[in-house]
């Protein structure tokens, strides 16, 4: 008869308890999306990790220019060859090596940005959902405001903010890019967490804890957090590819990662701007495919995780 009364309970938030870790892992493994996505993600991470090794093997650093060997007299880059697996770019640099280094930037920006956003968003969402009432109204308003700001333009203003009196950046631009992306994605986690916590704060589980006199801290840490964290982690994986795209977009528009540091976004921008991709298609295809693969990898993986771990998709 237990299926008769349908109350949304904490249990439904995340059905599998950790004792069934192996079961969960089994379920995950059975999900094709997880297997494919996982394999691709490993590939991306390997690319990032092995970038210096490949650079060393090929003898081409990410910013080294080989104007005499990799370009003709007109400055047109050569196409793929043994020495330059994906050919050269408009400055005689190795597209393959730069693409691999681009993976590093993507992850180095995407992962911290998403993590920071997750931590901030979850904390704020927790407070908002748990204390409800006026606190919630204020935070909801703040979320509204944060969501209302257009991404690229505000990012530009914020980047300009990072200019000291001398016109030099106050903190490293990469850090700013990370912070900006985090600033624009914490709301996602805040709203997610808030919704979960709001539903949970009047759940029998939390009320039971209240009646035995548990403190707020105890309730948040022991009752609520463990039940929402898995979902939050899943949504971390969902948000990550979006943030990788955000970095690439900023760099593409010339306001993210600055030359000569390679980022997929600024590589693609360069390929397009110089129109060299028409002669050396790999100049565009290299970073383009890499970006696509990385994003697709995380998208696939996170979709799989979500299918298994959070069947009631939240959008």
């Amino acid at each position, binding site marked *: *008869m237990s299926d008769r009364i*349908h109350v949304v309970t904490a*249990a439904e938030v995340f059905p599998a*308890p950790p004792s*069934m870790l192996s079961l969960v892992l089994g379920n995950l493994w059975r999900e094709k999306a997880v297997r494919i996505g996982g394999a691709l993600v490993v590939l991306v991470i390997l690319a990032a990790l092995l970038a210096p090794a490949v650079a060393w093997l090929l003898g081409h650093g990410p910013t080294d220019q080989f104007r005499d060997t990799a370009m003709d007299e007109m400055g047109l880059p050569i196409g793929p060859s043994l020495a330059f697996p994906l050919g050269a770019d408009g400055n005689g640099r190795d597209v393959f090596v730069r693409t691999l280094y681009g993976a590093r930037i993507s992850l180095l920006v995407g992962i911290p940005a998403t993590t920071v956003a997750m931590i901030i968003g979850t904390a704020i969402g927790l407070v908002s959902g748990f204390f409800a009432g006026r606190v919630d109204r204020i935070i909801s308003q703040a979320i509204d405001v944060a969501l209302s700001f257009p991404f690229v333009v505000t990012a530009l203003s914020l980047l300009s903010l990072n200019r000291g009196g001398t016109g030099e950046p106050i903190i490293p631009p990469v850090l700013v890019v990370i912070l900006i992306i985090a600033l624009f994605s914490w709301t996602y986690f805040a709203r997610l967490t808030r919704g979960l916590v709001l539903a949970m704060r009047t759940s029998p*589980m939390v009320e039971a804890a209240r009646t*035995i006199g548990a403190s707020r801290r105890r309730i948040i840490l022991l009752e609520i957090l463990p039940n929402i964290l898995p979902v939050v982690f899943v949504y971390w994986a969902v948000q990550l590819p979006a943030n990788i795209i955000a970095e690439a977009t900023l760099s593409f528009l010339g306001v993210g990662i600055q030359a000569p540091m390679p980022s997929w976004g600024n590589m693609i921008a360069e390929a397009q701007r110089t129109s060299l991709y028409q002669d050396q298609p790999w100049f565009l295809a290299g970073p383009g495919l890499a970006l696509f693969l990385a994003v697709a990898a995380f998208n696939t993986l996170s979709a799989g995780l979500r299918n298994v771990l959070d069947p009631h998709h939240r959008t």
Partner: protein
Amino acid sequence: MTVFSVNDLRIRFGDIQAVRGVSFGVEAGKTLAIVGESGSGKSASVLGATGLLPQSATVEGSVLHRGREILGASRKALRAIRGAEIGFVFQDPLSNLHPLKTIGQQIGEAITAHRRVGGRQREEQVLALLDDVGIGNPTSRLKDYPRHLSGGMRQRVMIAMAMALTPALIIADEPTTALDVTVQAAILDLLKKLQERHGTALIFISHDLAVVSDIADDVVVMRDGYVVEKAPATDIYLRPQQSYTRELLGAARLGRPQRAASISAEPHRPELLSVSNLGRSFGTTRPVLDNVSFSIGKGEILGLVGESGSGKSTIGRLIAGLDRPDAGMISFQGKIYAQPGPTGLRIAPDLRAAIQVVFQDPYASLNPRRRIEAILADPFIIYGESDKAVLRERVRHLVNDMELPADILQRYPSELSGGQRQRIAIARAIALKPSLIVADEPVSALDITTQAKILALLGRLRDRLGVSFLFISHDLGVVSELCDRVIVLEKGHIVESGPTGRVFDRPEHAYTRQLIASIPGQRRAPSLSGIREAAHV
């Protein structure tokens, strides 16, 4: 004439064999009841037979509708039958009605899915149907959405939909389980009336033998996908052949509750908790609680009954200090701890410990991510115990008290049965040696046999520890078995209170009388009392 018959029906969901060879049939104008505990395959059988199961199900066997084989028939053929020749009424009328379509559209669709009728004509038919199923002022209801209707009315709409084309057979899958007793009685009446008028055959599914006792001509008892027993109703109730059937009968509270002789009204108990002039309202609608006053004595079990939405749980939450009243006050041993105002809720730690709660859904009240041991250790930790060994000892003791095996401690709530979970919830509540436990429908999520065990446990706790209970239930039978005193709540007002025996024997208020009259199984009850006694023995 047999309208519909099922032969050797077998249903599989993946590797789960849900139905393992079931046969039954129903004749025109007759009612076949299918009874059995949850998960026994009742719904699966009828849904499988009519092609309504998801495609993941494999259905084998034979199903004859008016002599024609319909199992494996084309979708189109099945669709032509469903609605036109077989009508369906499902359990939860809210979830079974489309939330975004008006009831006029939904009933009309039952007609237009099979017949070409003009708009005017359709509307007339819908109005006639609404009138038939006893919905007053039908014209004004046409444009209503399901959310605008009460539970009973929704179920009437479902019935109107099923009856739209006066099918030869109606399949009603637990049509009253989600409803209050009084509404349940009315719906059963309606079904019976319509059946008689149109000579419809009826397959009626229920988990409660009491409910079908008034209506069934034949009964099929199912368990684990098998038919345990199949016989005319009189035989089932008077001469059950199988022990399982007898067990079901024993648990069913047929007819007017019988007071167990052991519970005698003690003359006077010292007052433990007092509630006076309590009021609470949410938003602008009428107050949920209005001027509620009562008290609970030491060691007393006070029953609180009333239909859904009458404010029972709200009272429970107020007493447990989970909510603050808008009016009146609550005092514990003379000390006021809850009254209106922003600082109205002042609960000292010892008071916190003294009043504990057991919730309806045991699974929802246990943290699925923590082991039972951690859950049970919580109260001790919160009240200052930190020695690991002592904690372990106390937790073990608790589990022992609850008659649970010790190895349960290392498990997670999801690995426990419903009854076990509720015991854990109770264990956590008594860990702090409370004086009062608010039990909000603690057994209504459990199946009938488990219910009995938990009720017995509560009784023993009272006897052994002298704990008082505020026992909230909508099931009069349960209340009558356990409680010393009963208060009856209607729309936030107390309409009657008194010793259980008195209230049940000589109800003073019309509402109480209505509640008691609606208890199912009363028609057969006199003839059954003997069996009941026998089953108890």
